[in-house]
């Protein structure tokens, strides 16, 4: 017996297996980042003083725009595949991955600036939570890049065998990617502006 509903949705749940899976995974991610944001709140409320203006709002804002743009290109990639335009879809996946990479390069300059002044996570509670939150978020970005590289590279062969399944995979990656983007949308004001 084959495993059913790998591509087509099950009538009573309205979902294919992968879509339900990715939503459940994102639910657990909400709990993960939720715990870290709670940590941030608790530490900040208990702090005697909280530093302001330690981070470059300009670099942060640029990164915000990069991630939002990458979310758009991700949707376009999926839309192109839905319209059966494989090469364009693939191109947009690559563009998304490149934007993600630019985000990380930008982040590297921010990190390097702190470390060059000897201010690592050990320096203060603020930098501790800053490095932990953005580091974990960066790992999620990296994970996204790996998946996109797979989809645009060795995983692209699936298109020939089963285009619907391939398109679904891009959709699930997109859901994950929007979540990672959303986390940053919270991180930026919380760490850079407030």
């Amino acid at each position, binding site marked *: *017996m*084959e*495993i*059913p*509903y790998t591509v087509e949705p*099950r009538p009573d*749940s309205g*979902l294919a*297996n992968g879509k*339900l*899976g990715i939503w*459940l*995974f994102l*639910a*657990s*991610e909400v*709990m*993960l*980042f*939720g*715990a*870290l944001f709670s*940590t941030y709140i*608790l*530490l900040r409320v*208990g*702090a*005697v003083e909280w530093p302001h203006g330690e981070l470059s709002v300009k670099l942060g804002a640029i990164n915000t725009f990069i991630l939002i743009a990458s979310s758009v290109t991700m949707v376009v990639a999926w839309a192109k595949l839905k319209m*059966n335009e494989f090469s364009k879809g693939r191109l947009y996946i690559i563009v998304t991955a490149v934007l993600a990479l630019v985000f990380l390069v930008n982040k590297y300059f921010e990190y390097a600036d702190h470390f060059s002044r000897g201010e*690592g*996570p*050990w*320096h*203060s*509670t603020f930098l*501790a*939570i800053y*490095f*932990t939150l953005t580091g*974990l978020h960066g790992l999620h970005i990296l994970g996204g890049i790996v998946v996109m590289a797979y989809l645009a590279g060795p995983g692209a062969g699936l298109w*020939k*065998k*089963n*285009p619907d399944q391939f398109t679904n995979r891009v959709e699930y990656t997109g859901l994950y990617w929007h979540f990672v983007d959303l986390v940053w949308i919270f991180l930026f004001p919380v760490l850079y502006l407030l």
Partner: protein
Amino acid sequence: MDTTATGTAHGHEHAHEHDHAHHEELGFLRKWVFSLDHKVIGIQYAITGLLFLLFGFTLMMVMRFQLAYPGHPIPLIGPWLGDANAPNGVMLPEFYNQLGAMHGTIMVFLGVVPLAVGGFGNFVMPLQIGAPDMAFPKLNMMSYWVYFCGGVTMFASFFIQGGAAQSGWTSYPPLSVVVATNGQVYWLVGMIFLITSSLLGSVNFIVTIVQLRAKGLSYMRLPFFVWAQLVTSFLLLLAFPPLEAAGVLQLMDRVAGTSFFLPSGLVISGKPLTVAGGGNPLLWQHLFWFLAHPEVYVLILPAMGIVGEVIANNTRKPLWGYKALVYAVIFLGFMSFIVWAHHMFMTGMGTTISAFFQTTTMIISIPSVIVLTAMLLSLWGASIRFTTPMLFALAFLPMFGIGGLTGLPLGLAPSDIHLHDTYYVIGHFHYVVAPGTIFALFAGVYYWFPKATGRMMNETLGKIHFWGSIVAINFVFMPMFIQGLGGMNRRMYDGGMQYAHNAGLLKWNIVIGVAAWALGLFQLPFIVNFFGSMKWGKLVDRNPWQATTLEWSAPSPPGHGNFVVEPVVYRGPYEYSVPGAPSDFTPSFEPERS
């Protein structure tokens, strides 16, 4: 578009044939080690889990010698422990702390959960819902191997300089952060592996239950065990990430020099600690117990599920109050997220917060009582078959009852102030988990063994195992209530000899020690039975227990893909002794006779 579609269909067929050709000739490695089959993965989980249970129990048998005869050299294994742990065979306090921390960690995260969820959940659940496999077989294999890596990391920490983690299974900071050895780092990395494994597993379980139920198997026809696994998976999915976050934070504290859990101005051994400070040790406790209380229900729910199956089968009656049971476990799942701070009454959270958590704790006892009551009422008027699995399932009821009722005084802040951190607490949660959950797991092993191997386990050895264990285990845990009510503290490597109030209580340590070693001895018939029956057990057909749920319609053992014909479900899971039916069981997979 047309060409693509045909191409796809072709590709599919081709892949299909290809697959089939390969099934016959899977090598040993693909079939038994890196298997994608949920049944093999379930058995891998179960055997690894059982081995860790044995290992964790062995640690305790060694600790019990130290408590019964403090300062005496440990017989048999003493010389093997090394001078760093036990010079001349006499245990050092640091080593006692390692054993204590690792006993808890191993039993909970490497023993019971992998056996109850990874083992039984993986093996039984897809069969019970009529699925060919789990929804994501590769993810399933990955869950097992990530768990395995976590287990190896934990195990390896015993052999590093300074030994394993020493700060209890709860790893409370500041102690866990400032203790000098690296065992704690191994513990944290191991936990991150185990948590990741549980997360992947729980996604897989939920998707499988929602998506792969057989035709006709609506939610209210699901076997109770499947319901228990579904709720358990949600707890793992949502409660584990905060501990993962906490683990990352503590790891940062240990390796990156942060002070998330270290307050300003901390003085250790008379010297102020040179850290940035500003952290909060209570934060760890909140994050830890936000997982660890739902974790209690992760331990108990699959056990309840197993007991439900075994009781229905051996009473030859439907489970009493099936719907009440289902709603009770769902409610239990929700409530378990808002009771965590009843572990923290002593931390000075304030009476308002304490009052809230006392209230929720009292409320959560209601669904537990409903489950226990429904199971007990299921026995009423039945002509019970006293098979080995049934004996274990029956023993679960009073044992879990004792565990639950002794929890009430701990859930109320005034009485908890007296009892907290005493042996009373140890007695309480061990009654829930050891003669409760682990007995239910034994019931499950005896009950589903014929499905996994096609052979029965020996009943005589099973009964020796049962009666020996139930007597011994009560002599282990019952005296702990006496010690705890007398005020004897836990985690003392000599039992607390220096305190006058313990003088009359220490003698019980000898009773507990002897009972613990006897308990160990009575596991031997089980080990012999388990491996012996694989080879010499009585051969059986598909349905040796004359049961009604779907797993018994598959061959024993089921082949790849589980079912020979696609299963269809026609009725509820426990149609036993239906008036007018030709036999005392009407399987859910049997069509109506017209």
